[in-house]
């Protein structure tokens, strides 16, 4: 698949190392996508990297990708300026299985750690819209290292205004922080969702997702109602090269969003040799 040229039409710094790029195709319409999917973004002359879409399908306008500067390609992407061209291949992978229709009455608990809120942002937008149409309650639990690392603060406030329960906890508070301090899992017990009628969407460091999934199951959430977003070294995005293999899964094709119960709970607990 040949990358399609997209131009940076907006850029926003979220934290000291996370930038959101808004991209429009140089020619043709914007691609359709589902929350949870990812694109392969090319920094021309540097390389290509898998980045989740952080927008919601119902949001009109450009594609949104929130990029964390963790290597040569991601740094190059973070350094793109307005008008620069980025290559885009995709969308790839599986989605969070949410819509903005209000026909699902289950509570949904979204647990995000750090930049893990980016792949979930679109899903939360759809869920909050669905709630207005009679859908189930929405609970957004966010963990961050410290207050300066909380991404999408304006979205968190907007979701709370629109009826979602939004709880944020940091590992290291600042003197101006008056919120929760501690692991994000400590927010679960008192969040207020009905464990028996709840599904959960988890994204963040894999250790965090593993412990959060266990905590949810201990609270009574059915393991089969838990979805996690996994990542490995995505390269082709098409299930050909095998670099993203995890057990029997090729995550660029069978993921990144996968059910926790069945295969993944075992894989997440397997020690790599």
């Amino acid at each position: 698949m040949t990358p399609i040229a997209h131009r940076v039409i907006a850029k926003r710094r979220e934290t000291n190392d996370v930038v959101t790029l808004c991209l429009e195709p140089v020619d043709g319409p914007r691609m359709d996508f589902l929350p949870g999917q990812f694109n392969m973004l090319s920094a021309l002359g540097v390389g290509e990297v898998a980045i989740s879409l952080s927008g919601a399908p119902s949001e009109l306008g450009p594609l949104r990708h929130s990029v964390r500067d963790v290597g040569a390609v991601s740094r190059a992407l973070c350094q793109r300026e307005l008008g620069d061209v980025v290559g885009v291949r995709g969308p790839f992978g599986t989605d969070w299985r949410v819509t903005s229709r209000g026909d699902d009455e289950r509570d949904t608990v979204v647990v995000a750690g750090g930049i893990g809120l980016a792949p979930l942002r679109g899903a939360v937008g759809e869920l909050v819209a669905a709630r207005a149409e009679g859908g189930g309650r929405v609970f957004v639990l966010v963990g961050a290292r410290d207050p300066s690392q909380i991404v999408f603060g304006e979205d968190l406030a907007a979701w709370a205004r629109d009826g979602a329960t939004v709880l944020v906890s940091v590992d290291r508070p600042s003197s101006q922080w008056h919120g929760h301090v501690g692991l994000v899992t400590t927010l679960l017990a008192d969040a207020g969702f009905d464990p028996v009628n709840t599904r959960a969407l988890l994204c963040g460091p894999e250790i965090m997702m593993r412990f959060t999934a266990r905590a949810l199951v201990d609270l009574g959430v059915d393991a089969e109602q838990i979805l996690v977003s996994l990542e490995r070294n995505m390269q082709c995005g098409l299930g050909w090269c095998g670099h993203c293999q995890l057990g029997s899964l090729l995550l660029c094709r069978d993921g990144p969003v996968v059910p926790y119960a069945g295969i993944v709970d075992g894989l997440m607990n397997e020690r790599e040799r």
Partner: protein
Amino acid sequence: MSTSIAQLVRAHPFTAGLDDRYVALIEGCSRNVAFAPGDLLCREGESADTFYLLRRGFVSIDVHAPGRAPIVIETVGPGSVVGWSWLVAPYRWTFDVRAKDPVGAVAVDGACLRQKVLDDPALGYALLSRVTAELLARLQATRMRLLDLYGGPGEH
């Protein structure tokens, strides 16, 4: 309709599965308390003869430092237990505990329970196993925080 202290104690997860006679002993050592935001439940260095079964609202476990606002170590919420120093000599609070929200709690007289444990070691074991479970959960969470999971790959 007011709720009796017996109902409050029995409703808290700390007493789940506990023998009825031991629950009654705890009830006999308990009182219903409330704190406004900013109130101190306990102060570092003071005598630790009470522990709290949190029912409503969050508290912060703080350490005070000269020239700055208290440093929050952790926030703890409903269903949790605050205060373990009543179990271990010299029975002194290690940190401050302050109400973040309007807090409702059951204050349990730890000194009273320490005396009852001398008469009934099985009560001591039952209390210790419950406190240990709370300690274990907090230690595991603290260890996870030490991993600095949200740091970048180059920072590990």
